[in-house]
């Protein structure tokens, strides 16, 4: 028998209890024509063998541990406090199921209630859900909620300066929902062009800020342009919320996105964690799970999944979303990181990221026309676009110099200006910035 399964003794005793000669007798309901022979897979492996095989695969990847990295574009490399993984590694958290029995799930429930509170504080929105899959699907859920709230309209105004994966995901879902996307171009300043926008026909106006170019959008202007349509801010670099005023301050209807930047590993793109915050009046149309406060039979405060009448297991075809499993453990990780950073740390981390990005930007300005900033006059948080006709070749050259210098925009979408997106965080040292600038001076 396998080490993860009970022994042959148990098996024999159960067969005897059931009065069976073999396990096969239990499978008689499966017709023979559906049966298969031996699986074409290797035989069982020892832990050490599995460790060797996957360890070798892991070694075939270059990691940000090996050389300075300036990659962002939706996944950001910030500090990861050791406490985060220590908490996540507690079996009481990671081997628990969805808290359907609240009396034995208060740990998860209270942590998620805290996550919801953190999301509200960061976004300055009144309510937030227990998490979604990622920023792209959170963006979709915002649009679908807007469509439910404005059932007579089918148009969505969406910035083309969204992360291209979010925009592409939105296109996929919108087609099925019968929604028409009107994509708003960016202007010479890298911000979404809002002139001539016709919000009266739209369910929502969706922008990302900072946007895919790292440029901070004019949120009050977006809110004004949205009119009766729901104003939606997508946040991809969540640590920016430590420095930049969020949509909630300007009357936005939804602030959503991804919280990966608060200490989640890149993990080749997932799992990260989507978040969704909105106004109280949209509560009944919100997607996803919600944790609420209540009391137990003794009157002591406790937490429970609530308003599940919106959800698929109760409402089925009429649910506000099809989501069931969310990204609870990643929400817990973010909750731990935010608790450690606290009031000062959240601000200091954002300030340091911004400061280092500005420092590097300053160095790169000296390169002039060889590698110009795409939007030199615009405010950015910690990421910016440098124009270059052959970004992949440039990145390959810099990788040879021992630097992961950024993301080539053609990798994201063909409609973006060709260049490299450079992201800087508090983890990047001044020396790394100097090295990148020096390498660029050499190779350009």
């Amino acid at each position: 028998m396998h080490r993860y399964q009970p022994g042959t003794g148990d098996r024999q005793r159960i067969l005897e209890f059931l009065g069976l000669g073999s396990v096969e007798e239990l499978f008689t309901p499966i017709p023979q024509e559906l049966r298969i022979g031996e699986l074409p897979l290797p035989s069982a492996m020892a832990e050490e063998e599995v460790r060797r095989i996957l360890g070798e695969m892991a070694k075939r990847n270059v990691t940000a541990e090996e050389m300075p990295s300036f990659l962002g574009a939706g996944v950001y490399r910030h500090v990861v406090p050791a406490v985060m993984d220590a908490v996540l590694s507690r079996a009481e958290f990671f081997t628990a199921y969805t808290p359907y029995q609240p009396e034995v799930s208060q740990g998860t429930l209270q942590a998620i209630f805290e996550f919801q509170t953190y999301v509200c504080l960061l976004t300055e929105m009144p309510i937030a859900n227990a998490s979604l899959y990622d920023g792209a699907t959170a963006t979709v859920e915002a649009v679908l909620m807007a469509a439910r709230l404005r059932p007579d309209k089918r148009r969505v105004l969406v910035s083309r300066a969204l992360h291209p994966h979010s925009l592409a995901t939105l296109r996929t879902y919108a087609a099925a929902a019968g929604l028409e996307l009107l994509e708003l171009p960016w202007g010479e300043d890298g911000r979404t062009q809002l002139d001539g926008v016709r919000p009266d026909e739209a369910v929502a106006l969706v922008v990302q800020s900072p946007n895919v170019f790292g440029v901070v959008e004019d949120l009050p202007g977006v809110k004004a342009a949205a009119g009766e349509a729901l104003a939606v801010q997508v946040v991809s670099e969540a640590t920016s919320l430590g420095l930049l005023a969020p949509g909630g301050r300007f009357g936005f209807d939804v602030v959503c996105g991804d919280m990966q930047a608060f200490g989640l590993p890149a993990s080749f793109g997932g799992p990260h964690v989507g978040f969704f915050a909105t106004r109280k009046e949209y509560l009944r149309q919100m997607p996803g799970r919600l944790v609420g406060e209540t009391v137990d039979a003794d009157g002591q405060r406790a937490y429970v999944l609530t308003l599940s009448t919106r959800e698929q297991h109760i409402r089925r075809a009429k649910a506000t979303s099809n989501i069931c499993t969310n990204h609870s453990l990643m929400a817990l990780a973010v909750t731990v990181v935010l608790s450690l950073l606290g009031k000062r740390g959240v601000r200091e981390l954002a300030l340091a990221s911004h400061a280092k990005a500005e420092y590097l930007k300053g160095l790169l300005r000296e390169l002039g026309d060889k590698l110009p900033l795409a939007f030199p006059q615009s405010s950015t948080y910690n990421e910016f676009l440098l124009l270059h006709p052959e970004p992949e070749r440039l990145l390959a050259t810099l990788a040879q110099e021992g630097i992961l210098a950024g993301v080539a925009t053609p990798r994201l979408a063909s409609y973006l200006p060709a260049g490299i997106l450079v992201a800087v965080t508090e983890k990047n040292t001044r020396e790394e910035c100097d090295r990148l600038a020096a390498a660029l001076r050499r190779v350009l």
Partner: protein
Amino acid sequence: MKARTLRQREKLVFERSKPGAVGYQLPKLDVPLPDLQATLPPTGVREEVAGLPELSEVDVVRHFHRLSQWNYSVDEGLYPLGSCTMKYNPRINEELARLPGFAQVHPLQPEEQVQGALQLMWELEQALLAITGMARVTLQPAAGAHGELTGMLMIRKALQERGEARRTVLIPDSAHGTNPASAVFAGFTVKELASTSAGTLDLAALERELASGDVAALMITVPNTLGVFEPEIRRAADLLHEKGAFLYMDGANLNAFVGIASPGKMGADALHINLHKTFSTPHGGGGPGAGPVAVSSRLEPYLPVPVVEKRDGKFFLDENRPSSIGRVRSFYGNFGMLVRAMAYILSLGRDGLRAMAEAAVLNANYLRKALSPYYHLAYESPTLHEVVFDDAWQKSAGVNNMDIAKRLLDYGFHAPTVSFPLVVHGALMVEPTDSESLEELEAFVQAMAAIAQEAKENPELLKTAPHTTPVRRLDEVRAARRLVLRYEPQSSGE
């Protein structure tokens, strides 16, 4: 009875805040601070985020440590949540997912820098193809429900390319709630099919519905949520295909027949696989999951982009698929969960996987027989990996399935799934999984038998249960009526 252990009440993290406490130190700032007035828009800058707490590292560790102690988990014991399939989560999987070569890899590094990550995805796809007998797999969906939606979007796209506007998706009444929700979000209208008295698909009803020509697909779980194998599944697939419709298979219960039968032979066109249910990825108190979708050659052109391909020994991401439904999320999937599933498949191997299905079915049938003297079996049909009882024998004492579930918590076990599937009134759905030893199963049966006795002699004990858990039964109505969804200083309860 499980004793209350060393458990302390724990305030919310916000209530523990102490002015001046710091939980983390950032590296020293080695560049000048910019003039924010100059670098950021005037409306854009905020001060410190109001309401964030201040705690020391010790405070934070204690806080979450204490919270963790209020959770039941699969490492604690049997977690008989039917259809949720809570099995052991091997530790080696956790170690491997955290290797820097997996965890510290950025998804947008050039392909030549991430050959190992792409290889893992490619090999996991090959393994899932071997297991399912399908044509291709997308690893992107973040969870089972996301997989359902992805599969249904592919069916929609296939119909569109054929120039057909079929609207109806048929779903048996025993299905998971995600099935109808996903079908609707993919743009379809749902029609529910009543199950037969044996709890299985009504083939005659399927034929009648197919006559309309409007049926896009049947969404069905195999074995179904009663644990009953659908004996006519291949016939259903043939009928659907003859009429130009598709078979969507909910793979939530794949763990019942891995290595024994294949969805490919059953005629499935799309099948999502909940990696945590069959392939041991942890559920994390509600996620993340991963819901790869395996498809037949009929749906292969419509897979979401990108797919991982291999050419001349090199792996690459193919975004150029003209008939694709497009993207369904950021990047390529919940990669960390894919690493864990791959480690599990390698650990079990061909024999271990089959033995897993056998152990799951054996354990479930043990519980079926051992519990039947005490609880009413909802359906007599033979069952595979899970079995559904109901509260019919306890109702006369005024005790319902929820009371039984809550009382079980006092005995130190998690409860079975209650009130699902909807076709069974007062359902108690039990799934032990392959992980459980006979000793653990016997202890569970003893607890359930004792509760059945208590239901007769002292029903009040059940109705007021649980009595020994960190909190007692919750007022769920109050939670929904007097909504408190976040901490606010003035509403502080304690």
